[in-house]
């Protein structure tokens, strides 16, 4: 398997050009393999675990006072957060389709759509950074030292040990890990993509193909390719979870903004995601 494509600069020196197609295919098949693994896991292993740990957790575990204090609908995502999510999703899908479909034989004029979607993604992410930093519960999506202990406990539980595991805060650990991966890949894709705008004719920046040395351009292309390939896998798995019947309540919350009381009490720890009847917000 080739990791990178190499070429020669005008002085005959070997320089990086971009990632190889093998990495793209690897990312795609890794995503498919993960989905298949999870399908088997959900069909075979999860029912087994549910029987082993029957009786604990869920709405029934919450006290009457707690249930009474929780409103019928709890806001999980504000309108602004949902608008950002769907703009980002649309631009990301456009970027993946325009970035990779021509490479696998679906040819069309892709470049203009690609860079416009990239600029849209950049603007939406800048907005998200400001919005999440000053108007949302900033730390709720980040991973902290306490999460390591929780992760160990969850793994033990998955392996059949009788370990008490707290229910989730507002964002489950896997969501926060996913957010971290998307953030890293996204910032890499955006940073390199903005530099790559100098290689093409756009109204955004004046074209300058010699902005960087050939070797540096190669690194930019490689980083852009790696982050793009990562998004192939990340997007596949994200869409898979979004359409799973047992997760659809979360997908609906990204559409309508709310989760209902039952799902809240089933999946979340009221002490870790504090919701009051007055606010209806977390």
């Amino acid at each position: 398997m080739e990791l990178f494509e190499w070429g020669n600069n005008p002085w005959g020196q070997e320089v990086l050009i971009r990632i190889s197609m093998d990495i793209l295919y690897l990312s795609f098949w890794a995503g498919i393999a993960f989905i298949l693994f999870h399908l088997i896991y959900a069909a075979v292993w999860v029912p087994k675990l549910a029987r082993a740990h029957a009786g604990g957790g869920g709405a029934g575990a919450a006290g009457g006072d707690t249930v009474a204090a929780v409103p019928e609908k709890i806001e999980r995502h504000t309108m602004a957060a949902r608008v950002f999510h769907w703009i980002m999703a649309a631009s990301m899908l456009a970027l993946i389709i325009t970035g990779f479909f021509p490479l696998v034989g679906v040819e069309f004029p892709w470049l203009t759509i690609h860079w416009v979607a990239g600029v849209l993604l950049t603007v939406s992410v800048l907005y998200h950074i400001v919005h999440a930093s000053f108007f949302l519960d900033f730390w709720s999506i980040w991973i902290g030292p306490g999460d390591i202990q929780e992760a160990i406990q969850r793994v033990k539980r998955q392996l059949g040990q009788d370990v008490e595991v707290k229910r989730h805060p507002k964002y489950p650990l896997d969501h926060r890990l996913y957010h971290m991966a998307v953030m890293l890949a996204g910032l890499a894709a955006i940073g390199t993509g903005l530099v790559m705008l100098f290689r093409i004719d756009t109204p955004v920046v004046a074209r300058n193909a010699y902005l960087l040395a050939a070797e540096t351009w190669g690194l930019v292309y490689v980083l852009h390719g790696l982050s793009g390939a990562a998004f192939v896998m990340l997007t596949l798995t994200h869409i898979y979870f979004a359409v799973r019947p047992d997760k659809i309540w979360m997908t609906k919350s990204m559409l309508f903004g709310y989760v209902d009381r039952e799902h809240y009490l089933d999946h979340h720890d009221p002490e870790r995601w504090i919701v009051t009847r007055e606010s209806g917000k977390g």
Partner: protein
Amino acid sequence: MAVIRDNMPAFELFQPASTDDALGLLNQYGSEAWVLAGGLDTWDWLKDRVKRPSVVVDLGNIPALREIQASGAGLEIGAMTPLSEVVGHSVVREQYQLLADAAAVVASPQIRNQGTLGGNVTQDTRCWYYRDGWNCYRAGGNICYADTPTAMNREHCVLGASRCVAVNPSDTAPALIALDAQLVVRNGSGERVVDAAEFFVGPEVDIERMTVLEPGDLLTAVRIPSTWAGARFYFEKSRDRQVWDFALGSVATAAKVNGGVIEDIRVVVNGMAPTPVRLTAVEDAVRGQQVTDQTAEQAGQIAVRGVKPLAHNAYKVSLLKNLVTRSIRGTEA
């Protein structure tokens, strides 16, 4: 970089005697195979050691590919027909003079005897950065050396650039598009017929090839419908010297003129963009108009809308305008 040597790199040479045999070889070797027609484009690549195919399939022994067949529906010209035979064919001269005019100004008499219609249409671009083996976009790299601050790009495009600024060098391509020709492409899974206007691929779609042909594909014939037979034709090629040179710009026009009024028209230019460009805005503007100097001037003005010259080819804007103007007027004067 290109290195000119006495000997070409070794390759396995096949000389099939039938189209089916050729297709079988192309199917077998896929992207490893190089199709050899007249060899005018091929030998440069191979001698410069920029392209190194392991297999060369020479079509020179397939008589079926060099026939010209005329019928009521039009003309079918085998892809291996030498350009000089195209120029001299009586039906081409009587009905489709536009193609004869275009083929007659390809390079030199010797090259027209050796070069084929299919080869002329499918030849690669002449951008010297690319042909000299520079690792540009078209060669699989990540830069266009012809569009940098220090680049020599006098012959490059003023229209349709998308990262790559190379132009299509074919003289016959604009004539075939103006004649609404169709190109017959065969491969292991069958035959498809592609409109000449759709045959050429720009860098915005695929930066590494000039036509729709993919490994395994073989251009077998060019079909010219009778739609434009006997129309008023105009072809002009502008070049640095009057023989053995590629076009700086060319125009091919087919027009149905009745009583001095343009009833229908095709205007196609080449040497201005990575593909031959049909100027539909010009066609729409002059259709139904009298052939006058004013109409021709207006057409020239419309032709240059949206042009983006590079550092050294601003002259192509005037060239494009004047070529189109003269083609509508119908005379060089």
